[in-house]
């Protein structure tokens, strides 16, 4: 188990991490998700030993490794831009970690070569060992990087934006393949991404970060269905938000009550967030929100309807079943919000 206690790090005047506490369970696939500047890569690099914290502790299985260098931590690190050694063949790249071991611990040459072949087979690049990195595609290079990291039998695998430099199709294939590989090997793994779809698809648990702090930790389902802060609600999945005032346990948009369960929110100003699919269409009557349709297009089995609510300058997006005919642009639609979350704000709506 990997434990992080009170980790802080500044780069000059910029606070990259502000007191991070985190537990990573054995065998889990954990995503660090956040926008750029959220500190996710810094956290990953500190866990790896490529960066050192100003304050706080990193423990591997209860053992304090905060001061240990990367070479002594037994971690595999995969870089966004692969960082393959361009002057070495693919096989030599994979064998590098074994070939730099001290004389007593270094396996014989034939054994190193066999191990490299085995790993190349594992990442489905068997027979390409004699090539140079420049002769491989992006997806192949990243798999070589992965094989190279696995060669030293790490107790922890760290991946920094592993799909960031790949095009969409390759990214999707590699993602599916990596999830299968993880399921097969069960190696504790942490990966950094700014792509929420990637985090939700791959990870057992997702850590959402913003401005050097952890916003929420949970399963993809929990994060998507129950964002605990306005930031998570915005960042993970699509969501609409309405500025509301809560009085007597009910949300009001410009003094007009909105009929949605709030689970006992306190009175005051707030932000009512709802997903595009958490609405249903109803007649324009009391409790239904009038939406002026400004755009319609098909998204799979649904109509994605864009519209305006009077007095709100943000476009509202909702999904309407394609079983209905497409709403006409310029007409009005009544909305019932089925499920929403309220975040208290200081500002007046």
């Amino acid at each position: 188990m990997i434990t992080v206690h009170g980790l802080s790090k500044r780069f000059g005047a910029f606070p990259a991490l502000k007191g991070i506490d985190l537990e990573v369970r054995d065998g889990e696939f954990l995503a660090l998700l956040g926008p750029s500047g959220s500190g996710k890569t810094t956290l990953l690099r500190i866990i790896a030993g490529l960066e050192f914290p100003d304050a706080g502790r990193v423990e591997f299985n209860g053992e304090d490794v905060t001061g240990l260098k990367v070479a002594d931590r037994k971690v595999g690190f995969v870089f966004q831009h692969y960082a393959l050694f361009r002057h070495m063949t693919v096989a030599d790249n994979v064998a590098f970690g074994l070939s730099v071991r001290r004389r007593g611990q270094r396996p014989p040459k034939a054994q190193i070569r066999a191990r490299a072949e085995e790993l190349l087979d594992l990442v489905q690049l068997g027979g390409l060992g004699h090539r140079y990195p420049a002769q491989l595609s992006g997806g192949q290079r990243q798999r070589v990087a992965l094989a190279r990291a696995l060669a030293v039998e790490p107790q922890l695998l760290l991946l920094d934006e592993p799909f960031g430099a790949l095009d969409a199709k390759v990214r999707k294939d590699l993602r599916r393949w990596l999830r299968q590989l993880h399921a097969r090997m069960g190696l504790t793994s942490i990966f950094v991404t700014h792509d929420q779809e990637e985090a939700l698809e791959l990870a057992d648990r997702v850590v959402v970060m913003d401005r050097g702090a952890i916003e929420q930790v949970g399963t993809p389902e929990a994060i998507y269905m129950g964002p605990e802060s306005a930031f998570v609600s915005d960042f993970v999945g699509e969501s609409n938000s309405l500025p509301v005032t809560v009085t007597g346990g009910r949300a009001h948009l410009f003094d007009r009550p909105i009929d949605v369960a709030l689970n006992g929110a306190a009175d005051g100003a707030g932000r009512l967030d709802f997903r595009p699919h958490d609405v249903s269409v109803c007649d324009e009557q009391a409790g239904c929100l009038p939406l002026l349709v400004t755009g319609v297009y098909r998204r799979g089995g649904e109509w994605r309807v864009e519209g305006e609510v009077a007095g709100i300058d943000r476009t509202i997006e909702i999904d309407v079943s394609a079983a209905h005919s497409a709403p006409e642009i310029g007409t009005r639609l009544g909305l019932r919000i089925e499920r929403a979350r309220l975040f208290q704000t200081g500002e007046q709506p």
Partner: protein
Amino acid sequence: MTSRPAPGGGARFALIALAIGFLALFLLLPLVAVFAEALAKGFGAYAAAIAEPDALAAIRLTLLVAAMAVPLNIVFGIAAAWAIAKFDFRGKAILTSFIDLPFSVSPVVAGLIYVLLFGAQGWFGPWLRAHDIQIIFAVPGIVLATVFVTFPFVARELIPLMSEQGRDDEEAALSLGASGFQTFRRVTLPNIRWGLLYGVLLCNARAMGEFGAVSVVSGHLRGQTNTMPLHVEILYNEYNFVAAFAVASLLALLALVTLILKSIVEWRFDHQRGGAGH
């Protein structure tokens, strides 16, 4: 078509002729003149001028100075480029501009600085004399002046290359358990080898050809502290043109060899970069 039309036959011919004529007049003709003048009295006179003891001493000294200055600047250059390209520290900008100092200051001034420091009247002069160490008007002074003047070549070549390559490769090697030295030898050095070779060639050419700074600290003792460029000047001032141009032709030859090697290295360098797909 948005591209401009190619100049007509006449204009194109004129431009090419102008370029070739310019090259011939200012580069090729002097080079030919050096060899023509050197061989003016036949190959025998040419060989004799080079085999003359003072000329041999000058050649030997030039090779010795280059053999000391170039390795020193390889070490300094790699160290400086490594520090500047791969780490952030206070005073980095100042260090970067200091590396360019030898390029921006006149070589004569560079020589004078060493006279000021190590000469008989200089800051360390009395101490050096008390310990019977001679730097100015001796080989150590010549080496120092040459090191100063040729310092930027290796570092200048490596800094942009190493900055562009970033720290990922080294970090990857370290994360795989390599030691600092293993990382340098097996990852960093191979990554910079062509750029390094290019810098070394330029450094060497300048080390052998340097005149100004060396002239100030040398003392011009024939057969003792004369390098090839200084020897050429002395012979020329004595109206010994065949000998002067004979030695000069060796320097010209060095320039040609450097140019050819440089082209080969550049070609390999581009090839490797292009092949890396960055």
